[in-house]
Each structure stands twice: as structure tokens, then as C-alpha cells.
């Protein structure tokens, strides 16, 4: 059962390096349903080509390839500065030497064959989540910026100020005058803003100079 939001995987590309062709095929087949694009390769050469030409978010690699070593591949990747892609090792070998080297290379996870699909998906999810969140955050920031450009920038500043000074219980201890001292805004505009926020139940005056922010009201919008 999927207890994470696997859907976020849809936005990401994965490079899968495995020399067992059959396994490669079957796994790609399954991952195709979840990822944006799965690049399945069976040699380091092909992998390098893909890395040069495509945008890859996660690398999934076997350690023992025909005549090649996945760990060496990763090492050479880490050494070249422009490529810093999170990697997961999938392998049938659990020798300590491999584990140690993998840890040194700071791989995200180390999965043992035979592959457990859930485990794999969860791992990938955990890797891409930050990226996803980063993206989302980026989007929100962009949104705010655009809005502030298009609308009254000062109101946006006030909202930013409030959001910034919330404590753990989502309360802010402030007054109009305090806000006005920080932001160049007329009082009537400020009062109007606060009223609107209160109407929507977003920011409520619970007591003298204390306002509470209700996250859930935002969700219901």
C-alpha cells in the first residue's frame, strides 16, 4: 500500500543502469507507470550518453556490471563538478567493501536484490521529495513575487511580515503601529487588510495585540 504521495514521481526522470537485460526490461516496465521517463541502460557508456543529453533526477545503478563497476562509475561522476545526482545502488552483493565505499560516496540508499517494488518506490520518493518540495516552494515564491508585482505590493509586504513573525502556535504579537513602523503603508489600508483577513478566518484577533493564523482556513479556500 502506498503511504506516500507516489504521484510526485511523475515529474522526475530516472536513469536505471543494470546489466541483466531481462530485469532491466521488467523493472522499466513497472517504473514507467510512475516516473516521467525511465532511461534503461545496460552499460556505463550508454549511461554517460544519457546523462549528457537528458535531465536526470535520480540514478539507479547495479554495482557489478559486465566488465564494469557501478561504484567506479559513481566515483567518476562525483568527481566531475557539474553532475550531482542522488544515486541508489541496487545489487545482489552485500560485501562490506562495497557497502563502505558506497557510504563514502554518500549514496542515498542501498537496495538488495531481489527488488522489492514498494521499497524501491519509497526510496525514490524520499529522494525526490525534497526536490519536489523545493520546486513547490520555488513555485510559491514565484507566485508571490508575481502577485506582488501585479497588485499592491505593500499589502504583500505586510502579509510577508506577519507570516515571518508567527511563533510556534501560529500567533503573532504585534500592533498596527509596529507594522507601520516597518512597512510604509497607510493605516486605513492596513486596517482594511486585517479586516479582510479576519473575515476569511485567516488571521483572527484573539486578544489585545495577539493575532492567530489559521492554516486550515487557507486549505478550505
Amino acid at each position, binding site marked *: 500500500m502506498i503511504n506516500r504521495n507516489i504521484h510526485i514521481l511523475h515529474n522526475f526522470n530516472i536513469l536505471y543502469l543494470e546489466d541483466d537485460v531481462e530485469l532491466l526490461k521488467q523493472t522499466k516496465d513497472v517504473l514507467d507507470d510512475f516516473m516521467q521517463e525511465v532511461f534503461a541502460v545496460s552499460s556505463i557508456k550508454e549511461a554517460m550518453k544519457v546523462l549528457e543529453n537528458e535531465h536526470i533526477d535520480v540514478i539507479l545503478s547495479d554495482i557489478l556490471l559486465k566488465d564494469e563497476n557501478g561504484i567506479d562509475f559513481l566515483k567518476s561522476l562525483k568527481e566531475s563538478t557539474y553532475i550531482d545526482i542522488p544515486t541508489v545502488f541496487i545489487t545482489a552483493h552485500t560485501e562490506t567493501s562495497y557497502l563502505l565505499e558506497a557510504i563514502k560516496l554518500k549514496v542515498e540508499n542501498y537496495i538488495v*536484490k531481489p527488488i522489492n*517494488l514498494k521499497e524501491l518506490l519509497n526510496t525514490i520518493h524520499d529522494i525526490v521529495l525534497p526536490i519536489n518540495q523545493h520546486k513547490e516552494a520555488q513555485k510559491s515564491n514565484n507566485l508571490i513575487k508575481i502577485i506582488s508585482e501585479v497588485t499592491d505590493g505593500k499589502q504583500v509586504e505586510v502579509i510577508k511580515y506577519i507570516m515571518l513573525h508567527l511563533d510556534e502556535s501560529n500567533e503573532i504579537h504585534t500592533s498596527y503601529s509596529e507594522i507601520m513602523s516597518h512597512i510604509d503603508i497607510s493605516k486605513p489600508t492596513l486596517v482594511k487588510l486585517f479586516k479582510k483577513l479576519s473575515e476569511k478566518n485567516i488571521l483572527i484577533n484573539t486578544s489585545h495585540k495577539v493575532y492567530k493564523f489559521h492554516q486550515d482556513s487557507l486549505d478550505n479556500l
Partner: protein
Amino acid sequence: MKIKKILQALDAISFGYKSAFLLFIIMGGMISIIFLSQVSIYTIKNDYDLLFEKRTKSIIRLENIKDTYIVNINETLNDMQKNIINLQQSAEVITLARQLIEKNWSNYNKIISSEEYQISWLNAMIKKIFIMNGEKPNIILQQSIIKNIEKKQKRITRLLNEIFNPYTQVKDLSFYMEEMNYEINSLSIYITSLTNYDLNMAIQEKRDTNKIFDLLSLILNISIVLVFLFSALLSAFIISNFKKLHFTLQGDVLEKTEALQKLNDTLEIKIKKEVENSRKKDTLMFQQARLASMGEMIANIAHQWRQPLGSMMMIIQGVQSKMELGKLTPEIINSKVIDALLLAENMSDTLENFQNFFKPTKEKESFSLKSVIKHSLTLSKYILEQRKIKVSIKISDTIKLHTYYNELSHVFLNIIANAEDALGSIEGEKFIEIIAKEVNQKIFIYIIDNGGGIKKDILPHIFEPYFTTKYKSNGTGLGLYMSQQIIEKHMQGIIRCKNVCYTINNNKFEHCALFTIILPMKESTDDK
């Protein structure tokens, strides 16, 4: 006690010395006897001769003197008196006669006093030692007679002088003549007595010589008898010694032979035990080898199964995942089932191959060489593919064998496995070539790989049991040993190995290992 000690000492002397001693004694005795006899014979004869000569010579001289006196002088004087011859003639004759007498007398004296005619010192010694009939030669008598004779000679000479003195008167002449007669007669009597003396002496000396001879012969006989007895005794003694020695040695030899016989018997028993032991060890080793190769097989199976298993698991999970996403279609199920079944079949085949491999074959079968080699290659397919080793088989389909299929397959598998290991560590092209030829009722199988060959110092040992160049747990050292046992003992074949240079497609490879297996086409125990 002393005698005992002496006897012991004598016993202790070695055999060689004893026999030499005996021989020496006998020889010595014989030689001394011979020597003695010879010496005695010669001295006696010598003495006899000498004495004989001495005496006869002296007697002859004396007789001569006597004759001269009587005939020459007396008769002449008588003749002169009778005037048959004249004075001058008689004087001449008498002078001549006197000269003769002088000469003979001096000779006689010479002879009797000559050292030449002394008896040999040996006989003198014997005479002295054995105190012979001590009749000393009466020299005094001889001397007195000689003195008398000389006195007479002087008188005769004086008389002659008187007679031939021209101043002698005739009447004195007849007186002188008569005196002369008388003197000459007495002289001749003296000479005769001297002669008798000499004769007596001769007889005496003959007696002496006889006595000496008797004595010597007695001594000789006694010594012969003594030597004979002594040597007989000694030989008896030594022979008895030899007999004793012989018997003791014989006894020793018998003892030793018995001991040896016993030892032999115990050794035979030991050998039987050891041979049994060694056979047990052999079977044990064989079993070990089988177990080892079983272990290898299982590792192979594990290897060969791992991937299909992984893929199959992914297929199954994929089905579930697709269903959860609502993407499961009959087509997808079909294709996944096909894939899965293929993988499962693969795994099953692997099992079967190995199962067959370990069935103990007690029967010989007829099969083609190509099929058994292909079978072995199938079993190692996984590693060959993984390491990208090219295998080429140049065997005619018509080469057939009648022997133990599995065991032969085992041998090929072992050699191919070794080649795989050698090729694992080299760069570049990797190949294994298997070629077979039929020559003179024999099949020659050549397996060549370019894995670098086998080091010279290792090459003589590769077929030895427990010999391996791999690190501990990776090699048992039994593979080639088993292969050799199978080929040589079960199939009456030969297996060899050497390093060669091999050319394929105009590429020369310097360091290749070549395994040669020679099998008889039909074994002599075939009843077809």
C-alpha cells in the same frame, strides 16, 4: 686357565689369518725339510768325496815315494853294483829319483796339512755337538812316523852322497850298499805304516761320515714326522674351528632367515593393510572431489538462478502495481506470464542439467563426442557469457564414443571451468577452442584457451590431488586430479597439458594452454 685364554685368543683370530697361518706352517715345514735334506746330502757327499780324495792322493804319493825308493834308487844301486849300468847313468837316475821323491813328499805334506781337505764345518760341528766316537786322529803317531821317515830320508841321502862320493873305497861301497838296502827297506816299512795310518784314517772318517749320515737322516725323519704330525694336528684344530664356525654361522643364518621370513610375513600383512587404507583414501578423495564439484555446481545453480528469480519477482510485483494503478490489461498479463514462464523454464532446465550430471552412471553408453561437449558448455553457459568468452567447437558429428557419459562431461566441465578462471583475468579477446580428431582407432581431443598458459614450475604438479593455485576456499585442487583418474582409470585414456602458441584468424596468441585427451575408440573389454 692360561690354556683357555690361549684357546680363546686363538678362536678370536680371524678365519683368514688362521688359514694363512696353517698354510704358512705347512709350507715352512716342507721347505725346511727339503732344505735340510738337500744340505745334508750335499755336505755328506762333499765330505765323502774330499776325504776320499785326500786319503787316496796321499796314499798314492806315499806309494810313489816307496816305489821310487825301491825301484829307482835301490834297484839302480843294485844294478850299479852289478855293473849293469855305470856310475853316471845311475847318478842321473838317482838324482831324478830324488827329485821325484822331493816332489811327492812335499805334495804329501801339502795334502795332509792342506786346509782344502778339512771336513766341512757342518760335520765338524755335528761331531763336536754329538761327541762322536772320540777317536781323535792320532796325529802324534803320524808326526812321529813322518819324523822317522825324514830321518831315514836324511840318512839315505847321506848314504847316497857317500856312495857317489868318488873318494869312497870299494869295500865301503858294498857296506854302504847294504846299509842303503836296509835303510830303504825300513823307509818303505815306515811309508807303509804311514799308508796304513792314512788308510785307517780313511776308514775312520768313513765311519764318521756314516754316523753323521745316520744322524742327519734320523734328524730328517724325525723332523718330517714332527712336521707332519704338527701340521696334521694344526689342520685338525683349525678344521674343527672352521666346523664350529660353520655351524655357528649356519645357525645364525637359519635364525636370520627365520626372522626374515617372519618379517616378510608381517610386512605382507602390513602391505595389504596399507593398500586397503590407500584404496579407502582414494575413494575418500574421490568422494571429496565429488562433493567439491557438487559445491561448485550448487554455486553455479545459485548464480544461474539469481537473475531469473529477480526478474520473476519484478514481473509479479509489476502485475500488482499495474492493478493498483488500474493499468492492468489482459495483454499485459499475457506478456508477463509468457516472460515469467520462460524464466521458470530456464531455471528448471538448469536444475535438470545438474541433476543429470550427478546421477552415478554405472553403465557405458554410446554417444557422440560433440553432444557431451555441448552439454558441458551449456552447464557453464552463464559464466562464459558473462565473461564474453568465445567458444568454438571443431568436432565432426560422426565421432562416437562408448563410455560413461556423465564422467566425461564432468572432465570437460572441469577443464572448461579452469579455462574460464584463467581467462577471467586477461584483457582483450578471450576464446576456448575444442577440436577433435580420429586417428588410428584413437580419438584426440584438444582444448585450447588463451588464458596465459600454465607457469613452468606449476605444470608438473597440476594433476596432483589437493594442488591448487587458487586462494583457499576458491579451489580444492581436486578437479584435474579427478579428471585424470576418470580418463586414465575408467576410460583407459591419456590426459596431458602443455603451453602453446596458437593462431586463430591470423591472430597469434603467445600464451595458450592446451589440454590433450586421448581416448581409445573402442575399449578392449568391449564385447561387440
